[in-house]
């Protein structure tokens, strides 16, 4: 019996790549300046916050969980940094570190609740969402621009890479790409990463294989919290402000990006690389709809449809591999 050439779990990833390519080429064919460097840079820079958040969500979803607190944590982090820097004159790097620490701790706390008391992740992170959003408004009820030179001259000038006379690669995009690379290594080249896959693949088996299930689960939500906080930091980079109401519903976009990236929502199968592509696909859809001058609400509808498409694809794939198992057993 010869195994099939293309492993079924790569089908969604391939499909994601195909969709990305089709969207990009379509844009290029329809609009004369779509293949410009600027569009490419915008794609990364404009979706850096989403990208960072989605990478965190990838780990949580790979482990078989879900995190609804992403958007709220971004809002909390951004306003915390802005307030600390502008009103309390804390050094920006210190403020950023503090915010990252808090976000990470927040994730760890949710993970601990989920693990120790066997609570549903959905409810715990829902509570986390309410809590973080409320606390963001406690920190400061309205938005606040950050005028500290560290941001204006440091992050968005010195650290931005001038690509040509007009287009520069923003530091936020660098953060996204850097986190992406770190996440690739974490997912594929560390024991923790592989344990997360195993946990999402089959928790009982993972336990029987002697893997540290409890520790892995908490670690996953900790990573999620860190990424959300980092997304908040990147948000302050791209906008130079803090806003307690920022990124409402970002968690849904992140989950959409993860699913479109070929990760199974039930956990265990998926790729950080797919999430990267998923984020770019969402960005491309938005760009294309702006270019086509369509009502921007088409964006969410198209994303909804794409989501549906990928869920159905995953269904087909799992049905296929289910049959594969049967064939292997009986054939």
């Amino acid at each position, binding site marked *: 019996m010869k195994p099939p050439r293309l492993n079924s779990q790569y089908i969604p990833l391939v499909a994601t790549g195909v969709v990305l390519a089709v969207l990009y080429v379509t844009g290029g064919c329809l609009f004369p300046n779509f293949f410009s460097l600027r569009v490419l840079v915008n794609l990364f820079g404009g979706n850096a916050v989403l990208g960072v958040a989605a990478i965190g969500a990838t780990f949580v979803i790979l482990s078989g969980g879900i995190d609804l607190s992403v958007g709220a944590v971004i809002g909390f982090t951004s306003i915390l940094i802005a307030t600390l820097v502008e009103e309390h004159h804390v050094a920006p790097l210190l403020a950023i570190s503090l915010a990252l620490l808090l976000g990470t701790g927040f994730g760890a706390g949710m993970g601990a609740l989920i693990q120790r008391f066997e609570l549903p992740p959905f409810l715990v992170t829902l509570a986390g969402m309410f809590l973080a959003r409320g606390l963001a408004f406690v920190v400061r009820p309205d938005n606040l621009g950050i005028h500290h030179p560290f941001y204006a001259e440091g992050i968005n000038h010195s650290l931005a890479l001038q690509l040509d006379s007009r287009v520069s690669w923003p530091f936020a995009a660098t953060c996204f790409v850097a986190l992406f690379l770190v996440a690739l290594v974490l997912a594929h080249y560390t024991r923790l990463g592989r344990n997360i896959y195993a946990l999402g693949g089959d928790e*009982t*088996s993972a336990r029987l294989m002697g893997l540290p299930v409890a520790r892995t689960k908490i670690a996953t939500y900790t990573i999620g919290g860190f990424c959300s906080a980092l997304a908040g930091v990147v948000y302050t980079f791209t906008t130079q402000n803090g806003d307690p109401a920022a990124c409402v519903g970002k968690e849904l976009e992140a989950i959409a990006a993860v699913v479109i990236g070929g990760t199974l929502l039930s956990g265990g199968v998926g790729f950080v690389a797919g999430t990267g592509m998923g984020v770019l696909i969402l960005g491309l859809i938005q760009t294309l709809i702006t270019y086509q001058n369509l009502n921007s609400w088409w964006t969410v509808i198209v994303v909804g449809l794409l989501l549906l498409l990928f869920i159905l694809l995953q269904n087909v794939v799992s049905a296929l591999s289910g049959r594969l*198992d049967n064939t292997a057993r009986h054939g």
Partner: protein
Amino acid sequence: MASDASAPLLEIRGLTKSFPGVKALEGVDFTVRRGEVHALMGENGAGKSTLIKVLTGVYAPDGGTFRLGGAVIRPASTKEAEAVGISTVYQEVNLIPHLSVAENICLGRQPTRFGFVDWAGMTRRAVAALARVDLRIDVRRPLSSYSIAIQQLTALARALDVSARLLILDEPTSSLDAREVGELFQVLRKLRAEGLGIVMVTHFLDQVYAIADRITVLRDGRLVGEYETAKLPRMELVSRMVGRDWSAVAAAPRAVAGVGEPTGEVLLELRNFGRPGLVGPVDFSLRAGEVMGLAGLLGSGRTETARLIFGIERARTGEMRLGGRPIKVHSPRQAIREGLAFTSENRKLEGIIPHLSVRENIILALQAREGLLRPLPRARQLALADEFIQLLGISTPGPEQAVMNLSGGNQQKVLLARWLALQPRLLILDEPTRGIDVGAKAEIEKLVQSLRAKGLAILFISSELEEVVRGCRRVVVLRDRVQVGELTGPALTEEGILQTIAGASHAP
């Protein structure tokens, strides 16, 4: 074969473990030597899996001592058990199907380089580990792309990858075909020669006699005995497993309890009926007013046959006739409409609706047949519940008691009531008396007879031969998922069944 002189590898003395309400193990001794394959045998509830789980650190024992290679051990987790050299391969391949073979072998202990997983090193190590079980495959492919047999060997390789001294195999062959079993045994023989102690749990007698050096039999959480395979005839093994004293069985006259002659027409006919990989061809017919037994050891295909008839799994071969009409049952709903009823052996997962009341549990199937829009009037529901509580002697404070608060025997009666309320033509009872007390058993047996007298056809599955012999007019015997005989009349004795189960060929 290992000599008696060699010191035991594993020595367990007086192992006790109880769960709320159940004593799973009571003072069990168990010894495994180096370089032997030791079969751990017993019917349901014998305590095999509890023993294994205690041994591998999943459960903490209540009492008893463990020694491995002379040193006292007390593993508190799977990881600790592995650390002292105890590795386990579970029945359902407990690996991660989506990950590659290499990862499954090395998960949690991957070779690293500067702290990062070394994939090349992992591949090499996996290839080496698989070589020990004589397997050469592409280890980078996901586990799920390989057959169950290969997955089983992968699990074995993973177990061996830590320097295992004691290897535990929990029903390793239940999903394998004959050739694959042969290959597995080849590997086991090799490992035995390397000096490993191997504990194997299995229900297949042929396989036990093919590979095991010694056998330990457990029953109801107690040790029955430890035997040299060569010195234990099959008949004796089987009788010890099912708890009938061999000499007593042979001597006892046939106990017939009003099995009577069937009154009705042939109701159910199975011809070459089966599903490859699940249960082989089965041929028998059942008349209205007749109780027919399905006998065989655990895993012999009894339950699988019942599930095929009831449409939980679809039959792939042969034919089933109901009342003379050929029929293909594809769902329990359809089966129910055809007048079939089935109580599952797995009361908790497939029987009771735990939080619902006795009344609701009883009327559920009837209501489902009536449909969503024709609710049974409350008075009728209560009348039905009361009627069956009376009829079956269900011991409950009342019909509104949540069924999970009832004892096992009473839960079983509630389930029986659920099906009787349907007034079915054919009732399939899968282990209706398991885990319930003696009094309740007798009541259920009596009930079965009265139902038969009313013209019901009953297919009775039980691992208690005494019960089968007492209650059935005919018994179909299954072994290793194939029908091996049908006993009736004077041939229908416990001895006869045991002999049929044990098979003609006594020599391994």
